[in-house]
């Protein structure tokens, strides 16, 4: 009985256990399905993220390639610029060197010109001294000449034929003097053309002039008296 009871209990327990296992299995099955769904959802989500990341990666890769190309081009340009710069620098150095040489040459030439100028200045000073000496000599000679002119012999004035040979400076402008002489002759000028004492004495003598008398003499008497008195 005990055995039967035990078997009954055992059967009951087995049945309830079996019932419980089935529920557990169904529960686990349900849980498995849920996990599968979650897994699939996560997988899809991750796959999407992977796709997005791949896309980003591709974009970044393209950008990298583009930047690499740009960098390469820039490097080439930079190298070319550097080469040009170096060439230009070399040329400029050569020009600077050439200009330095030219400056040195000019300085030398300047120094030579200064020396030459100094020599010429000395020569000019000497020449000026010489000219001054000559000028002084000329002045002395001119003064001597003037003295000689001043002391040239007085030409007798009572012989017209003798005078004619000694007149000088015939081209002199005497228009003003002629005007004065004509004015005095016509008595239409207030100023008078006076006689020197020598001439006045001569006129008085040859005309036998008496003060206040407008004397007139014969031509023959004038000539005779004038020439005899003025000798």
């Amino acid at each position, binding site marked *: 009985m005990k055995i039967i009871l035990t078997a009954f209990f055992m059967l009951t327990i087995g049945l309830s256990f079996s019932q419980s296992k089935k529920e557990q299995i169904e529960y686990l099955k349900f849980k498995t399905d849920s996990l599968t769904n979650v897994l699939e959802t996560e997988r899809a989500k991750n796959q999407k993220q992977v796709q997005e990341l791949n896309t980003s990666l591709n974009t970044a890769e393209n950008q990298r390639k583009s930047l690499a190309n740009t960098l390469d081009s820039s490097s080439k340009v930079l190298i070319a610029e550097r080469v040009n710069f170096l060439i230009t620098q070399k040329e400029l150095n050569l020009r600077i060197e050439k200009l330095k040489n030219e400056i040195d040459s000019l300085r030398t030439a300047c120094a030579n010109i200064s020396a030459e100028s100094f020599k010429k200045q000395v020569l000019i000073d000497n020449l000026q001294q010489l000219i001054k000496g000559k000028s002084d000599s000329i002045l002395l000679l001119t003064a001597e000449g003037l003295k000689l002119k001043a002391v040239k012999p*007085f*030409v007798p*004035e*009572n*012989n*017209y034929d003798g*005078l*004619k040979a*000694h*007149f*000088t*400076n*015939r081209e*002199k402008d*005497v228009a003003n*003097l*002629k005007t*004065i*002489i*004509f004015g*005095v*002759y016509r*008595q239409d000028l207030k100023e*008078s*053309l*006076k*006689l*020197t004492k*020598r*001439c*006045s004495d*001569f*006129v*008085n003598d*040859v*005309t036998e*002039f008496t*003060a206040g008398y*407008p*004397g*007139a*003499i*014969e*031509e023959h008497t*004038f*000539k005779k008296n*004038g*020439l005899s008195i*003025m000798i």
Partner: protein
Amino acid sequence: MNYASFTAFYENGNCGWASKKVASVEYLGELNNGDWFKFTIKGGCGINDFSETIHRVIKVIKKDNTYFIDYIIDPTYKRE
């Protein structure tokens, strides 16, 4: 010309010229520190009578900015 008319001693003969004019004045040049002029003067005893011609050479000098006649000569006279 303080004592006589300028032409008094140019006149010809005792009649005294009623007409007279200077026909020309010629500049001869410089000599003996003066300027020399030759005057040709026409005149005569009657009115508008210019039948006589005489010549005079005068020497003009300048002294203190004033002109003076310093000498008078008849250029036609020849010594005998």
